[in-house]
């Protein structure tokens, strides 16, 4: 018989709060976590706004473990959110076998060590001052670059810290599939437990691309909104006036657990992960398939693996980035998958409030999906003001809504064509 997988702990660091409760409460108020960029001087960038994590105090963790002193924002958020999830699951008081616990994470990069990187480059202009002298750079790089800062940029380092801090010896991996990454990580963590390779998995994602190269890169791709004058209104998924996403940062972490293991230790159960679908568009680097081919197939696979029908879904947590194409194609894909029922099921995008946490987005969205099941409340899509004829579903505009929900479908689509669907279900 197939092993069942439940969620027994959750943790969030987000632009709307540095724990699950504050983030949820603010979502219920329809608040926005978006504001002017303060992490660097962005006044001349095309986009000057982002969803930054605020009032974040990582010092207690550094006091506890000095190896955390040089980590990137990605790892800081991951450790902090994992601490909340670990405690929430009661693992700090539970003597588990580290060999039976694994991690499947989606950590982004740690961010460039800008001062030293530019210092090493600027010490290496050749004679004409135009082009870098590579031989000089080798010498200056070795002298100027900080080894810990260089190491912590690598996207494998978050995993290294998490396994040490939370005593994990079992299967570990980190995937980085753009905006689909943490949903994919959760799906693979779910498969790891189902197969019997672990009883406990710490999973989710952490990312911050709110750094000069991140904003520059997305600006060049014209993927970001430039509605700088009114930050809280800038992220507007499914609204007619949407014009790009808002970059945000943070982390979402879940503890997945094999059902019998959770029962035996009388763990609190948020709900059950029942379905996972993973596909690729195989279409274009920058555009999703115009008919949502991969997205439809991902939802279809998730339903097949769960053995349930679209009509069983009470709420769809959309990818809903606030880009013109994504929201249109996702709407199309939902209509193809759900038929007439698409108009009866509420669909909302919490990116309207949080912005886009990139690799961490899917994890925060799945946690939200489980909270919807627990609390019978659906978070709104804020800034939904003007209808787009291509987006004609019930997007739960502007106000949280009370509704009893047993099953939630959560979509995540990554830049480059990865599509992930997860199904969350009430545990009975």
């Amino acid at each position, binding site marked *: 018989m197939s092993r069942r997988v439940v969620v027994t702990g959750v943790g969030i660091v987000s632009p709307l709060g540095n724990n699950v409760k504050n983030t949820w409460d603010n979502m219920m108020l329809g608040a926005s976590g978006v504001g002017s960029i303060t992490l660097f001087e962005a*006044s*001349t960038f*095309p986009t000057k706004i982002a969803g930054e994590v605020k009032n974040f105090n990582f010092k207690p963790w550094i006091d506890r473990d000095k190896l955390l002193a040089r980590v990137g924002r990605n790892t800081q958020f991951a450790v902090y959110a994992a601490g909340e999830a670990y405690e929430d699951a009661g693992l700090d008081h539970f003597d588990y076998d580290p060999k039976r616990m694994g991690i499947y994470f989606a950590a982004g990069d740690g961010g460039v060590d800008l001062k030293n990187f530019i210092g090493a480059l600027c010490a290496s202009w050749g004679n004409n001052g135009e082009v870098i002298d590579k*031989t000089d750079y*080798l010498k200056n790089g070795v002298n100027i670059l900080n080894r810990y800062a260089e190491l912590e940029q690598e996207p494998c380092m978050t995993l*290294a810290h998490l396994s*040490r801090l939370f005593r994990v010896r079992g*299967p570990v991996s980190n995937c980085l599939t753009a905006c689909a990454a943490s949903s994919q990580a959760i799906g693979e963590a779910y498969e790891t437990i189902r197969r019997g390779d672990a009883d406990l998995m710490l999973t989710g994602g952490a990312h911050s691309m709110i750094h000069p190269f991140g904003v520059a890169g997305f600006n060049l791709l014209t993927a970001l909104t430039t509605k700088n004058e009114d930050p809280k209104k800038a992220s507007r998924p499914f609204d007619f006036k949407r014009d790009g996403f808002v970059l945000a940062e943070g982390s979402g972490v879940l503890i997945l657990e094999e059902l019998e293991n959770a029962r035996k230790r009388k763990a609190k159960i948020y709900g059950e992960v029942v379905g996972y679908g993973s596909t690729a*568009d195989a279409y274009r680097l920058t555009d999703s398939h115009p008919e949502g081919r991969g997205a439809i197939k991902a939802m279809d696979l998730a339903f097949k693996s769960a053995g349930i029908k679209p009509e069983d879904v009470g709420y769809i947590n959309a990818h809903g980035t606030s880009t013109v194409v994504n929201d249109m194609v996702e709407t199309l894909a939902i209509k193809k998958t759900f038929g007439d029922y698409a108009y009866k099921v509420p669909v909302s995008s919490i990116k309207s409030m949080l912005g886009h946490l990139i690799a961490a987005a899917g994890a925060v969205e799945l946690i939200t999906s489980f909270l919807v099941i627990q609390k019978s409340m659906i978070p709104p899509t804020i800034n939904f003001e003007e209808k787009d004829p291509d987006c004609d579903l019930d997007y739960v505009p502007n106000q949280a809504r009370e509704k009893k929900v047993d099953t939630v479908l959560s979509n995540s689509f990554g830049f480059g064509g990865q599509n992930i669907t997860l199904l969350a279900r009430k545990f009975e």
Partner: protein
Amino acid sequence: MRRRVVVTGLGSVSCLGIGTDPLWKAVLESRSGIGPIQSFACDGFPVQQGGEIHDFNPRDFVENRKSLKVMSRDIQLACAASTLAFQDAAIDISKINPERAGITMGAGLLDNEIDEIAACIRNSLDESGNFQMTKFGAEGIRTLFPLWMLKYLPNMPACHISIMYNLQGPSNTITTACAAAMQAVGEAFRIIERDGADLMVAGGAECRMNPFGITRYQVLSALVNGNAADRQAYRPFDKRRSGFVVGEGSGVIILEELEHALRRGAKIYGEVAGYGTSADFNYLPENLSDSTGRELAMEMALRDSGLKLDQVNLIHAHGSGIPKDDLLEARSIHKVFGSALAARLPVVATKPFIGHTGFASGGLQMVLSSKMIQDQKVPATLNYDEDDSEIGLLIVKKLNEDMKLNAILSNAFGLSGQNASILMKRWEGK
């Protein structure tokens, strides 16, 4: 019943050539591709040798000029290796169900081109030559071309390949440093096993053969030290080992569900029979102290395969050449196999042929394991001439053509503490 997974295609690009034939030929001749770095002058740098690819023309593999423009060298190498793997597997893509074909690639931070990023920084300097963020935002950014970011996103190797070969099944990118490609192969194996696909492309690609890449490795104290002109400096498990020499390349294999492979009459290199993965609590070369994680990965792969310890004929070691890394690998082999068995279990390290290719290394290693088990030949561990009593392993010093290879255990251990082991069995028909 458990679905079985076999290797039906090999693709590789390395300093020993474009394709697996030149690589394998050199390996059988015990010839390394490591030589003086030529693509940039590295006078004064402590390491001046590398496994550099000199004869690679990406246009031979990517027809679309527009696509080529958004590919860093890592991505180009990955596309080339995948193309070679599909050719080797003799797969007609139009006859494969695209929804049942996927990809898992190992990757990580892809290095910028130094001239490209330097031009951007240069346009962000004020009159006194100091970097100004306001200037970067207003002028520096515009120096970069619109799709600049796409060249360096870690998931792009997998995305390009999925588009080139219409792979509509799962697409994943694993970023666990030196374990990445081996884990990518392991996860692809799992996906086929659980009926998530019938065919998976798996491997990795890396190019850190550039000023940013080798500087970072040196800052991390991972590279060999000694005579910068020494071509034989890369010597895993040897008493005088001191680190690694950087290589570049890509290794990709095609995995197929057994019946799928048999139905189309595919050539079968071997069977992937077991996968294990685990975590260590340590990172950085000097902090390595514990072999538990490495043991767990090997034990899990063995258990998964159902083979007994004495049925393993060869260990294809990670053998990074980093002093403590090799020591811990040796210690873990002793622990897993027991001293008596470990003393007569041959161990080979192949990185001295092509340099350490980081994210790609597990892919190239699996290409070589596949060739070993198909040809029943074990290459030499190059540059190994002095035993280290602390290692105490039976290192294969010369090409061995008389060994019976029914099962090879391949290891890849990431410096950041991720471990992966894969057990491959000989294919002797059903």
